[in-house]
């Protein structure tokens, strides 16, 4: 095919199709993208430097702002990195409560991403149904901490306070209600004929590209990679629970296309709801907690000894890692995050090459990236 005169198109940094601010410069041949360049940094807030300039007690509060949608994962990874310096053993109940909160937020995050994809596909009803269900989980977060997005619930070696009365029962009940809605999402969106036509074979991230760019999380799993830090990290705490890692096989199109990324997220929601049930059953009752554990729950942050700590967790966007250096002082010497979405964002020009201009918003949203986290 002969290349006609290329037309330059720019989307962003603020465009109705993107839910995140970034700039996309495209050269298009007809309707097809020949090449594109991305520009980021519109959400830059110098978060790591900010954390380093404050005392340890403020670090978790600031880490919440790494990715507002998934604030607890930034809290968790920072806590685990610091705990590896401290060398403390985390009480069983604390660990399980942390995992429970993380799984609830994972469901909430996936629902939010699916709603953004539905909006990009102009499926208004599906988007609102998804957001309606996410509200149940945000209400739970509010019940837990008084805050819907930034709970500031985790703390070094413990959780900040005990879960509220009836929280565990409500978590299971909310999951049951959301599970009942999944067939509704599927009818309206996931397996709707129009959406299948629109999303299969579109925005393909091949397994080779996913490996080359270091993509992790649902995007990598949709491309056929089976990596999940919940399985691969030995002390993640998930070893005793029964769950499988779903992988994209291109059931309706090619592996790693937009539809696979949607499907993986829907399956992970279902899987996380199973995990929530298992976790609630595994959490020891409060009165059964050992005196040591009860004491830890209410204790203040101890001084952080000098040393280096590194932790990895599986956030809803992929592998989130944190490297912390302490010099024994009141402030962290160094804090660095490895944002989960940065690799997916790096792969964007490769994914968009050859795609239709009409699909740009859909492809971008299907990657579920957070510019707040990437620009941090």
């Amino acid at each position, binding site marked *: 095919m002969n290349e006609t005169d290329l037309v330059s198109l720019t989307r962003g940094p603020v465009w*109705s*199709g993107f839910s995140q601010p970034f700039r996309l410069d495209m050269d*298009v041949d007809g309707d097809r993208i020949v090449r594109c360049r991305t520009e980021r940094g519109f959400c830059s807030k110098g978060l790591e430097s900010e954390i380093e300039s404050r005392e340890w007690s403020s670090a978790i509060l600031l880490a919440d702002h790494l990715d507002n949608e998934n604030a607890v994962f930034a809290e968790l990874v920072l806590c685990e990195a610091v705990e590896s310096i401290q060398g403390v053993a985390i009480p069983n109940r604390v660990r399980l409560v942390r995992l429970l909160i993380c799984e609830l937020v994972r469901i909430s995050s996936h629902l939010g991403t699916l709603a953004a994809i*539905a909006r990009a596909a*102009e499926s*208004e*009803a599906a988007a609102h149904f998804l957001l309606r269900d996410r509200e149940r989980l945000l209400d739970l977060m509010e019940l837990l901490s008084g805050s819907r997005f930034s709970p500031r619930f985790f703390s070094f070696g413990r959780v900040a306070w005990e879960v509220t009365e009836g929280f565990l029962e409500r978590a299971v009940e909310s999951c049951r209600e959301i599970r009942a809605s999944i067939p509704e999402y599927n009818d309206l969106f996931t397996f709707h004929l*129009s959406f299948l036509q*629109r999303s299969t074979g579109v925005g393909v991230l091949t397994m080779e590209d996913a490996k080359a760019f270091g993509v992790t999380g649902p995007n990598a799993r949709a491309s056929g990679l089976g990596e999940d830090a919940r399985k691969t990290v030995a002390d993640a705490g998930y070893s005793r629970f029964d769950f499988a890692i779903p992988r994209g096989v291109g059931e309706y199109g090619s592996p790693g296309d937009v539809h696979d990324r949607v499907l993986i997220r829907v399956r992970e929601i279902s899987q996380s709801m199973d995990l929530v049930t298992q976790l609630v059953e595994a959490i020891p009752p409060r009165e059964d907690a050992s005196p040591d554990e009860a004491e830890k729950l209410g204790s203040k942050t101890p001084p952080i000894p000098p040393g280096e700590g590194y932790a990895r967790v599986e956030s809803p966007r992929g592998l989130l890692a944190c490297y912390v250096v302490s010099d024994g002082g009141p402030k962290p010497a160094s804090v660095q995050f490895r944002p989960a979405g940065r690799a997916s964002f790096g792969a964007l020009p490769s994914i968009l090459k050859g795609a239709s201009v*009409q699909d740009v918003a859909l492809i971008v949203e299907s990657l579920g990236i957070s510019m707040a986290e990437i620009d941090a």
Partner: protein
Amino acid sequence: MSEPGILFSWFVEQREWSPVFARVAVGGVSFFAVVIPFLFFFEWVERKLGADFQARVGPNRAGWAGILQSLADFLKLGLKSSGKPRLARNKIWFLISLWLLFSTLAFLPLGSIFQTWNPEMGFLIPVALIFAAGVASCFLAIESGTGSSWLEGIRIASQSIAASFLGFLSLLIPGLRAGGYSFAHLEAAQGASPIRWLAFRDPFLFVSFLAFLLAGCLFLGIRPLRSQEARASGFSGAKLWAFHFSREYALFFWCAMTSSLFLGGASIGSFQDFFGSAAPLAELASLLSKCFFLMFFIRWFERTSPALRAEHGASFAWRTVIPFVFLAFLGELFFMTGGALWR
């Protein structure tokens, strides 16, 4: 209905106006007395429906249950300036598309009150006008001067060409059955009862009914036959309102045409005697209720469907629907002639 309408006769005979002025006046009266109130009411219903789908209350501030919200929006947007200045030729294409679209008012088959004339090609002329308006809006997009709008113009063109071919092809079948394309022919060919509507007379006519409706949706870019970029019209203020209103009017007009062609139109059959002197109003109510049903169905489908790419809609029309309609046309021809053409 085939006779000159009551209002037209009044202007010509009582006021002694020329037929041209009388038609303009009837069009104006029908626009302000019927079209605007109906569309404002339908927009309120549509917004309430959309709100219900999304677990919202919807408009509830202006008037009882927010029924005057459309009027409030008209006043608000109509008083705003249209944002960034545009090229003169852009304005011209905008005005041409509006003029072509609203000139179809002269052909609105609203029953015996507003009937103005009954040309031999009565149903083909407004459909041609609608497609001409589509071509004008295509140029409007192309002339907007940005890469995005140029692409949007090409997409509108591809959808309009597919929709016009499908629309005219599916129009041939009821015309064949009725023996002509005038309002009188279509009125004579069907009655008030659903079993006498052309849409349900035989399978070929039913196919053409669905295809004609689909052509309208394709032409108007109604979801799922809509591109992602279609919403980026670039209008604001009064122009934005005019753009939305003209799209809503085009849908209403298309549904009125579909009702008249396939669903008995404004006919109330033997109820004429029952209603007596109020029969013209009953005819109007009959047509508007059919339009309401069709528009409601289309909007309900739109609200629950993800959007396709522009080429999907055009491709579906060319590859699937048009061959079907062509076969339906041949089938109707065979059915009408009793196979005489093939013997």
